[in-house]
């Protein structure tokens, strides 16, 4: 438990992806089975133990510590779980700190009432970091900035494998994954996936560069719209149906409407959208409507009715029992049409192919798509096999030009790692009418899109024009006549109640520095509001 807690302690403050990978891989290498397997399951979110919430533990700590002193401590620290971990008094003569396996296995056997008592005895035995790690583990959801995908990448690194190989096996494995580690360390054969309706790693595309446009001819490439939903995989096998995200997370629980409607055996790749069949064909709602249904464990009947989901199918990986990923796209497409055509219904339709003559034709189509939820075109070689990962060449995405506005730099924050002495995270705003005339209101934050040379220029500007400091954040001069205008590119805009401006940008980045422009000529909030689809 102590080692695992030390890993979490390090991960939670480590911003860089590669550093996180090294920390996890080193931990997995140095830690014996089954502890490392349970740790991995905790990181990927696959560990099933009854949760013990910090609120239940605060009742236990006041049996040990004056409640007024605990109150002062909580006020000071802020976070309840951390306060309990730090303020829990050491117990002289407590038992040895438990290994992670004991914590997991005993909790799995424990009743709801026994859980908190077990945790209490372990808190007595652990040190402050150990207690913090334990509380994180049992509270459910570690939140240390590690995605399931990243943890699997670390596993892949441990054995020198491709992450997709891990993904493909994953759903057939159960914690503590002794057979997986044995294979990674060359002590046994590859585990055989016994899972029913498993996830298969997804094929991704590269952005089309200008000089690659000449490659695109209707003889070699098929064109489709790029729909702005989320990429999913719908699978059914032996009467078990599941829905996965592109990273292999099982989201069946949030989309029973889709899962019930998978009436064919096989695996298809498609875009999850909100909408449904009307007399005029499928009507598609906005991305923000889809967001209503994401990140839920379950869904209410009301939301099912108001926000029905469907899948616009792109590709077929498994047809019946045939793995057809080795066939070309043209052949797979025929299988897909047969499968979806037969399935029909309200929950599946086909992503149409777009006929085109030449590259100019494509450019026109891309510039004026028939629906606002289209974010560009996809180009797929007719002969491309379905390869996991992001191979260069067979598939391209060619997005619509992004929206662009001019905004004013308001705050800058210090970055991490290589950028730790640079002010590299920028909050920018646009003009709106305030109580005392025009004022800037923040509309977003961006921390990439610029070159290293531009970063150095902005950093110099920030240092020379600081008005205020708040910890690592500096407020920068932003007056009508003095300040820095940033051209911000972004993919879309939605209403937001969380932001003062009332708008939230998708995927904002800095596309140009407008040293030539005075802040007074930056854009206004009204301009942005017009971009929100109604």
């Amino acid at each position: 438990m102590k080692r695992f807690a030390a890993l979490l302690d390090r991960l939670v403050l480590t911003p860089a992806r590669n550093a996180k990978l090294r920390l996890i891989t080193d931990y997995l290498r140095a830690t014996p089975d089954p502890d490392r397997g349970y740790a991995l399951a905790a990181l990927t979110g696959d560990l099933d133990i009854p949760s013990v919430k910090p609120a239940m533990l605060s009742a236990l700590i006041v049996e040990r510590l004056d409640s007024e002193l605990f109150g002062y401590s909580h006020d000071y620290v802020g976070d309840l779980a951390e306060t309990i971990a730090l303020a829990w008094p050491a117990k002289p003569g407590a038992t040895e700190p438990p290994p992670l396996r004991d914590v997991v296995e005993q909790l799995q056997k424990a009743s709801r009432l026994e859980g908190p008592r077990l945790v209490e005895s372990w808190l007595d035995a652990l040190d402050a970091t150990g207690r913090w790690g334990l509380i994180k583990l049992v509270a459910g959801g570690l939140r240390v900035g590690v995605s399931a995908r990243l943890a699997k990448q670390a596993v892949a690194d441990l054995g020198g494998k491709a992450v997709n190989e891990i993904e493909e096996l994953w759903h057939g494995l159960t914690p503590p994954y002794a057979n997986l580690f044995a294979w990674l360390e060359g002590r046994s054969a590859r585990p055989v996936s016994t899972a029913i309706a498993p996830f298969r790693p997804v094929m991704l595309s590269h952005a089309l560069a200008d000089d690659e446009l000449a490659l695109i001819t209707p003889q070699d490439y098929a064109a489709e719209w790029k729909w702005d939903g989320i990429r999913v995989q719908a699978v059914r096998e032996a009467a078990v149906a599941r829905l996965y995200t592109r990273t292999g997370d099982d989201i069946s629980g949030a989309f029973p409407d889709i899962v019930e409607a998978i009436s064919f055996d096989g695996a298809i790749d498609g875009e999850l959208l909100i909408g449904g069949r009307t007399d005029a064909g499928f009507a598609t709602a906005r991305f923000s409507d889809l967001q209503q249904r994401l990140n839920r464990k379950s869904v209410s009947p009301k939301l099912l009715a108001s926000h029905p989901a469907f899948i616009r199918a792109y590709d077929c990986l498994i047809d019946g029992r045939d793995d057809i990923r080795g066939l070309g796209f043209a052949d797979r497409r025929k299988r897909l049409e047969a499968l979806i055509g037969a399935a029909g219904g309200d929950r599946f339709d086909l992503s149409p192919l777009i006929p085109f003559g030449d590259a100019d034709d494509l450019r026109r189509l891309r510039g004026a798509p028939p629906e606002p939820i289209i974010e560009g075109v996809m180009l797929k070689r007719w002969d491309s096999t379905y390869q996991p990962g992001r191979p260069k060449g067979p598939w391209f995405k060619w997005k619509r030009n992004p929206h662009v506005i001019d905004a004013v730099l308001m705050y800058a924050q210090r970055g991490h790692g290589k950028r730790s002495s640079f002010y590299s995270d920028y909050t920018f705003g646009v003009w709106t009418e305030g109580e005392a005339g025009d004022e800037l209101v923040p509309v977003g934050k961006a921390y990439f899109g610029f070159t290293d040379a531009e970063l150095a220029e902005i950093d110099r500007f920030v240092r020379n024009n600081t008005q205020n400091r708040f910890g690592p954040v500096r407020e920068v001069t932003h007056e009508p006549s003095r300040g820095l205008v940033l051209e911000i590119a972004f993919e879309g805009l939605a209403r937001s109640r969380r932001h003062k401006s009332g708008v939230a940008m998708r995927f904002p980045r800095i596309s140009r520095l407008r040293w030539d422009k005075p802040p007074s000529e930056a854009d206004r909030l009204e301009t942005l509001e017009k971009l929100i689809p109604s």
Partner: protein
Amino acid sequence: MRAEDLLSPTPAGLYSPLGGFHIDPTRAVDRALITHGHSDHARAGHRAVLATQETLRIMAARYGPDFAGSGQAARYGEPIAIGEATVTFHPAGHVLGSAQIAVEAKGMRVVASGDYKRRADPTCAAFELVRCDVFITEATFGLPVFRHPDAAGEIDKLLISVRQFPERTHLVGAYSLGKAQRVMRLLREAGYDEPIYIHGSLDRLTRLYQDEGIDLGVIRPATVEGGGRLVREEFAGAIVIGPPASFAERWARRFPDPIDCFASGWMRIRQRAKQRGVELPLIISDHADWDELCQTIRDTGASEVWVTHGSEEALVRWCSLNGIAARPLHLVGYEEEEA
């Protein structure tokens, strides 16, 4: 006779009506007794200063030889009569030269602890317990959430990280008096024998420690002139120590992919580390933690405790739970920074 005749709080700091002197005054006074060399306790411009020899040297290194009208060295354990009071300096274990000051008259003794800690520190004399009637304690870490771990374990954390990321520079933020030199010495005790690099602002005080006979090994200036590949090679896997603020300077960006570390008792609170952009917090403190504060109050046998700078209310609450009279002093001008 009242304890307030020996020492009482004033806007300029603790003042002794019987002795006619201040302890760690926050503004210039005629006669100042200084507990230790941190800048919020030891200020320049007093007419006469009484402090340990080491503290006088530290003040001279910081403010120049004319830091006071006159300076007198106090030896640990030797009583000195001032006015109608007698004062004695005792080691406080905080930084080099740090002292608690016992003020006595007519059979009553008040001890002003200044800042103190009770853990072993190879760079200064160990805390000495002085029994007294009134104990004036600091409360920098006066909350039960502050329990400092073993400093050697924190140094291990740093050395493990250096081995784990041998291509990166570890930038260790540490206050320039005391903490920085303690980290250097702890690294040596852990067997680290590579050169340790320091920011220019640590130079003078580090030399002073070395002159006092504290072996810090090979210390080199972290100058990065020229830049480019040579700097990357020299500083890959290196440990660079500097005052925390220096790592926000442009100077810091020439090191290869640096990891920001910070040696401070405040690093116990993760949110504090996060706010400062610290990637590897090292919980190493020159102040007593909660358990040490409580233990010390008990050990002094004081029937009354006055609590100053820090979380006064929590420590006062603890005293009242334990039947000891206590009150906060609300002295101003002492920063939490050098912790």
